[in-house]
């Protein structure tokens, strides 16, 4: 009859649900995210994909795909399997497979990749070396430092300077 009466036997709420399982219906995406507003300084290594939307200074080394967001600022030499760049990179990029530069990409440094795709509007100040990576596996020195040294003989070398 009086079913609204509170049960005071237990000092804790008995109808309190246990902590809900997190993300049970969501498939996890294995990518290391450096979010906007986060700053990383030093030698950053990863065994998987990396998404950078914040600031990074130093070196970036990943065996997966590097995605640089449009608001990201990278001042680092980069080595990656693949790269999708929409932000600002100040440093040399050594990409094993494909590099994709979106319209908002701003790169100041040398780019070495097996294949590149450049969207209209992307800015690139430095040397571009495209072809099968016979390779230059280590990070190359910056273009201004290399002027006095003899040029390597790439499969296909192009020097590009574009501005929007």
């Amino acid at each position, binding site marked *: 009859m009086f079913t609204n009466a509170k049960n005071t036997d237990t000092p804790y709420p008995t109808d309190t649900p246990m902590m809900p399982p997190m993300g049970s219906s969501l498939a996890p995406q294995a990518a290391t995210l450096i979010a906007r507003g986060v700053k990383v300084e030093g030698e950053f290594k990863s065994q998987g994909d990396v998404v950078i939307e*914040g600031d990074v200074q130093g070196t970036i080394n990943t065996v997966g795909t590097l995605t640089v967001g449009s608001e990201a600022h990278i001042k680092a030499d980069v080595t990656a399997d693949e790269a999708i760049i929409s932000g600002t990179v100040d440093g040399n990029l050594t990409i094993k497979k494909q590099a994709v530069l979106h319209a908002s990409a701003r790169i100041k440094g040398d780019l070495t990749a097996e294949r590149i795709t450049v969207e209209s509007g992307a800015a690139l100040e430095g040397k571009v070396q495209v072809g099968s990576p016979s390779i230059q596996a280590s990070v190359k020195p910056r273009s201004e430092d290399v002027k006095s040294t003899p040029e390597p003989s790439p499969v296909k070398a192009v020097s590009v300077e574009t501005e929007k």
Partner: protein
Amino acid sequence: MNRLYAFLYDDFLSAPSYQKILANIETRCSILGIQGRVSRLAIFRSARELVENLVMDGAQTVVVVGNDKTLQKIMWFLPDLPVTVGYIPVAEPFGIASLLGIPPGEAACDILAARRVETLDIGKVDKRYFLTEVLIQDTKASVRVDKQFNISAKHAGTISIRNLGSIAMNGGAMANAKDGWLELAVEPILPTERKSRFSFLKSLKRGEETLLKLKEGIIESTEPVDLLIDGHPINGFKFNLGVIPNKLKIITGRNKRLDSSSDGALPEAPSHGIVSATQGHLHRVASWWSKQRMYF
């Protein structure tokens, strides 16, 4: 009385409102044959001394009766003692109990009697152990990760180093307490411009969490920072972080959520990797409410 079991009651349980539930728990433990000596924590009594005396008297299982705060009161020294930990939550908060799969009240006695013992990693800040997490709020401190790089929030933000679950940052990504790693989460505060007639006001918004794994680290700051280690406040400029794998034996329930097989836990770290893959995108959805908090 089973001398192998010792029960440690928190101070707040002496309130009359808890007498009935305690009586029920004691009866249930008696039926299950796991009743033991009862000691009570008190303000002017050393918890460490109390537990060490129980161990010297032959206790092999110390059962904490209270809430998460009771567990945290003794966790800073307990891993050094040769005991298995049991936990009977009788009051909120009991988020840790939830992670361990232990229901509140006398139902926890059955979990205790079933004695499903798990060995968990334990985190360490300088010389102090922690089970769940270290929290630094609204800080510009940086964390040096595995002697490789420093990570910090650009303007300011919350840094948490998690060993088990995500207690303080409700909705944060879960940590795996059995993988030999700590999970580092950096949640920056982002300045945003408001588009209204009061647009001269600038607001601050919580950004996404950056999640990394680490085995050792150093928290550093030029200004003094306030750390909450398992809820216990500590202040300083520099702290060493570490993780000790398989250090703590604890009795858990069937529905525990301790490792990567649990929903929401971070994926396993590669054995040879410095930084592991994380699930930042998952967290974008999972902690949406925490990102909506506005600061003026």
